[in-house]
C-alpha cells in the first residue's frame, strides 16, 4: 500500500516536472482557453485552429520578423471557464511562461477579468469571441476579433429593409439573456428611426427556460408584421419557429449570430429552411482563404469549423502580424511587448478569413459581417456582406 502511494506520488511529480525544453529563437504566445468546464467545445475549436496555423508557419520555416526566422511556440492553458482561474492563468502566462502576447479567453465572463490583468501588466491580449464592450473599454492593451453585439442591430435593419422590403416588424427576445435583450433594444430603436414610430408592431419577451411561446406568437401574428426579428439562442429559435409555423405564420424571420450552431437544423428541420441571420462568417459558399481554411480544418478534425475557430485563426494572425510590424525583437520582454502594442495599432488593414479588419481606438475591430441563408441541406450559405456605414 505504502509503496503504491509512493509510486503514485512520484509519477505525479514526474509528470509535473516534464516541462518541454525550449529551443532558442522561438516566439512564445499564450492561449487562455476554456478547455474544461461549461463550454469545452469553444476552447477545443480555438486550440485546433491555432494548432493548424502553427503547423503552417513552422512548416514554412517559421515567422519572419525583421529578417530573422522564429519558430512559434504556443502555450495552451486551461481556464476551466472560471473567472478566477482565467486571472491566475493570465498571470502565469505573463510571468512564468513569459509569453509575448495572449489569445483568449473567449467567453466574456473570463475575458473581462483577464483583460484587466493583461492591461495592468502591459501585455497585448486579444479575445477572439467576447462581444461585451467592457472587455476592451478603456484598456489600450486589450483587443478583440469579433464585432460588437450592437453592430448586428444595424445589419438586421438594413438587410430587412433592403431584401424583405419590410415596412413593419415584430421582435421576440429572451429577457434574461443580456445579449438577446440588448440586441432587441438596438433593433427597435434603429428600425423605428428608419421606418417611423410604431413600425415595430410587437415587442415581446420570454424567459430562458420557456418551452411554449404561443401567447407571444399569437399576439405577434395578429399584428401582421412583415418579418419577425429573433435574436435568440439556436435551441429556442428551433422551438419558436416551429410553433410560429404551426400557428400559421408564413413570413420571414431574421436572426443573429447565436443561431449559428450546427445543432440548429437538427432541432428545427425543414421549418427553418430559407431563413436569414447575421453572423461572423459563412462556412458554405465561402471563397478564397476562408474556403481553404474550412476544407483543411474539416479534413483534419472532421467537422466544420464554427465561428470561434475562424475568429481564433484571425486573432492569432493579427498578433503575428503585429509581431512582424515590430520590425525585429530585442529579446527583452517588456520592450518587445510594448513594440507589439505599437504593432497592433499600426495595422491598417488585416485580411482575415472572417473579413478585413482594422482596430479603432478602443481595440474593437471595424469589419464587415455577413448575412447567411439556411439552405435545404442545412448549410448556412453566404447571402450578403454588410459593412459598417
Amino acid at each position, binding site marked *: *500500500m505504502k509503496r503504491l502511494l509512493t509510486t*503514485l506520488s512520484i509519477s*505525479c511529480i514526474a*509528470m*509535473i516536472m*516534464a*516541462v518541454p525544453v525550449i529551443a532558442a529563437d522561438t516566439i512564445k504566445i499564450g492561449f487562455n482557453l476554456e*478547455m*474544461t*468546464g461549461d463550454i*469545452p467545445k469553444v476552447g477545443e475549436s480555438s486550440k485546433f485552429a491555432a494548432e493548424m496555423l502553427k503547423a503552417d508557419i513552422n512548416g514554412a520555416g517559421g515567422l519572419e520578423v525583421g529578417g530573422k526566422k522564429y519558430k512559434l511556440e504556443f502555450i*495552451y*492553458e*486551461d481556464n476551466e471557464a*472560471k*473567472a*478566477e*482561474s482565467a*486571472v*491566475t*492563468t493570465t*498571470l*502565469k502566462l*505573463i*510571468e*512564468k511562461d513569459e509569453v509575448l502576447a495572449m489569445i483568449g479567453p473567449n467567453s*466574456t*465572463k473570463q475575458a*473581462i*477579468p483577464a483583460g*484587466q490583468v493583461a492591461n*495592468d*501588466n502591459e501585455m497585448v491580449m486579444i479575445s477572439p469571441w467576447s462581444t*461585451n464592450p*467592457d472587455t476592451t473599454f478603456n484598456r489600450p492593451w486589450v483587443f478583440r476579433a469579433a464585432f460588437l453585439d450592437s453592430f448586428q442591430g444595424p445589419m438586421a435593419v438594413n438587410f430587412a429593409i433592403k431584401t424583405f422590403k419590410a415596412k413593419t416588424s415584430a421582435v421576440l427576445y429572451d*429577457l*434574461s*439573456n*443580456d445579449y438577446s*435583450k440588448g440586441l432587441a433594444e438596438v433593433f427597435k430603436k434603429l428600425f423605428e428611426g428608419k421606418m417611423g414610430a410604431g413600425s415595430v408592431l410587437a415587442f415581446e419577451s420570454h424567459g430562458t427556460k420557456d418551452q411554449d411561446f404561443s401567447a407571444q406568437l399569437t399576439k405577434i401574428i395578429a399584428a401582421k408584421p412583415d418579418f419577425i426579428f429573433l435574436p435568440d439562442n439556436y435551441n429556442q429559435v428551433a422551438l419558436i419557429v416551429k410553433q410560429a409555423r404551426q400557428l400559421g405564420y408564413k413570413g420571414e424571420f431574421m436572426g443573429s449570430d447565436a443561431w449559428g450552431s450546427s445543432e440548429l437544423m437538427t432541432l428545427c428541420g425543414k421549418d427553418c429552411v430559407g431563413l436569414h441571420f447575421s453572423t461572423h462568417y459563412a462556412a458554405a459558399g465561402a471563397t478564397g482563404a476562408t474556403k481553404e481554411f474550412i476544407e483543411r480544418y474539416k479534413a483534419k478534425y472532421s467537422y466544420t469549423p464554427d465561428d470561434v475557430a475562424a475568429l481564433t485563426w484571425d486573432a492569432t494572425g493579427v498578433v503575428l502580424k503585429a509581431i512582424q510590424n515590430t520590425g525585429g525583437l530585442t529579446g527583452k520582454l517588456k520592450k518587445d511587448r510594448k513594440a507589439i502594442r505599437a504593432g497592433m495599432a499600426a495595422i491598417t488593414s488585416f485580411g482575415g478569413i472572417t473579413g478585413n479588419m482594422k482596430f479603432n481606438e478602443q481595440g474593437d475591430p471595424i469589419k464587415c459581417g455577413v448575412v447567411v441563408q439556411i439552405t435545404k441541406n442545412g448549410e448556412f450559405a453566404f447571402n450578403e456582406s454588410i459593412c459598417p456605414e
Partner: protein
Amino acid sequence: MLRRYSVHLSLATVGGLIIYLAHQEYLSLYIMSVLMFMGVNIILSTSLNLVNGYMGEFSCGHAGFMCVGAYVSSLLGVWLFANDKVFGAPLLNPKYTLYAFPLLILVGGIAAAFAGLLVAIPSYKTRGDYLAIITLASNYIIISVIENIGAIGGSRGFMGMKQLISAMEKRVDLPWMPIWVFLFTVFCIWLMRRYISSTFGKGVTAICQDEVAAEIMSVNTNKIKTITFMVSSGMAGIAGGLFAYILGYVNPGSFNILKSTEVLVMVYLGGMASLSGSVLSAILFTILLELLRPLQIIKWIVIPLLLIILMQFRPEGIMGNRELGDIFPKLKKFYRFK
C-alpha cells in the same frame, strides 16, 4: 508565556514575510494570486464546515451567499469610492478607501448572513436531504435575482472595484489586497474557533449528535441553527467580497452550483468538524489545481481519481474530525489556540 503567544507570533511572521516579499516583488504576481485565492478558499471551506461538519446539516448552496457578499461589498464600494457609469462620481473622497475597505467587506458579510436566513428559517422544520434541496434552491434564487437586475449589469456582471485597490495603493504603497485577504482569513478562523469552543458551540455539536436529545437537554435548537447558518453564510459573504476585489469583476455565473461543489469537496477532503483539516485541504486543493495545470484536460481525471483514492483509504478525510493538536499531541506543548 511563549506557548501562549506562539500562534500569534508565527502568524505575524508568516504574514509579514509574505507581504514583505510581495512588496519587494520577490514573489511574482502569479504566486500572489494563487495565495490570495487560497485565503478565499480557506474561509469558504472552514465556514461550510461549520454547517456540514459541526452541525451535521448538508448545505450545498454555499456559493450563493458568497455571491451576496461579493455583490453587496462591490456595489457599496464602487458607489462610495469609484467613478462608475451606473452610480456616477464617487460619493466620498477616494482617499478614505483604505479605512473603509474592511468595513465594506464586513457589510458584505453581514448582508450574506441575512441571506443565510433563507436557509436558516426552513431548517426549523426540515433537515437532511430536504434541507439540502432548500440550500440548492437558495443558491439558484440568489443567482437568478442578480441576473435579472439590469441596473447592476445583470448577467453581464459588474466591475469597477480595481479603482478602490489603486486608491488604497496610492495612499500607502503596500500590496493591500494580499494584506486584507490574510487578515480576514486569520480573523475568520479565529472567530470560528471561538464560536465552536464556546458554550454555544457545544450546542451546535449536540444538534449534530441528536437534535431531539439536544432539545430535551434545554438546547434552543432553532436559535442555534439560525445563528450558525448566519455565521457560516456571513463568512462566505466575506470570502465573496474578497474574491470580487481580487478579480475586480463579478459575474453571477461565477457563483453557480459548481463553485458550491468545489467548496464541498474541500470540506470532505479535510475532514468533517475539523477546522485545521479544512484549512489544510483548502491549501492542498488550491495548490493541486495549480500544479496539475500542465496536464490540461487530464487534470479533471487525476483530481477526482485522487479523491476516490483518498476516500477509499481514508474515508474520514485528511484529519477526520480531529484537530492538528489531537493528531500530534506533542505540538500542544508549543501552542495554544483558542
